[in-house]
């Protein structure tokens, strides 16, 4: 299950660049190629866009890395033959948003509420966060604020 951009998005966050070796095997690289930034900024000037409409700064969302298999679960969208964007599956976005909320709080809660739908996905995302040794109590606090009634019980199910 993937999610869609909202109808009034103002930017595109780039989580990582996919770089392939000679055999085509992908590796994830952060930050992305500087040339992309340069061209995106030129377009921002041309069309009076926010300068970071392509936000390729290493995001807080990737502070703990990306979930294993994120690329395979993503939906690929080709923009011509020079650019492919991979949009992560909901379970991966949830894991990344939980990570982000741990460090920056309120601004991610609304997104987490939208992404919380499937219990198994929630458990997978929470399990990924816990494997990164984040604070369980802080994670519970975020889950509760996002609408999970018994986050401690959810964590116990992961034991």
């Amino acid at each position, binding site marked *: 299950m993937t*999610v*869609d*951009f*909202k*109808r*009034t*998005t*103002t*930017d*595109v*966050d*780039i*989580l*990582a*660049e*996919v*770089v*392939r070796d000679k055999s085509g095997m*992908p590796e*994830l690289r952060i930050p*992305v*190629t500087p*040339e*992309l930034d340069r*061209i*995106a900024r*030129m*377009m921002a000037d041309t*069309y009076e*866009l926010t300068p970071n*409409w*392509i*936000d390729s700064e290493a995001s807080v*969302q990737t502070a703990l890395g*990306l979930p294993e298999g*994120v*690329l395979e679960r*993503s939906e690929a969208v080709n*923009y*011509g*033959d*020079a*650019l*492919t*964007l*991979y*949009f*992560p599956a909901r379970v991966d*976005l949830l894991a*990344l948003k939980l990570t982000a909320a741990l460090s920056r709080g309120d*601004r*991610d809660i*609304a*997104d987490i509420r*939208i*992404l919380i739908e499937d219990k198994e996905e929630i458990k997978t995302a929470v399990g990924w966060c816990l494997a990164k040794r984040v604070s369980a109590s802080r994670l519970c606090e975020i889950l509760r604020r996002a609408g999970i009634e018994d986050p401690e019980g959810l964590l116990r199910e992961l034991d």
Partner: protein
Amino acid sequence: MMMRDDIDSLLKELAARLKMAGIPHVELIACGGSGQYDR
């Protein structure tokens, strides 16, 4: 505030400019910024 179609058009133009700049196929993992998801 840009609409979804605007973003798509901009990304197509970005792709064209990348190609003109001689940059090989760029692959990115992307998502919307904060407060920008919808089902």
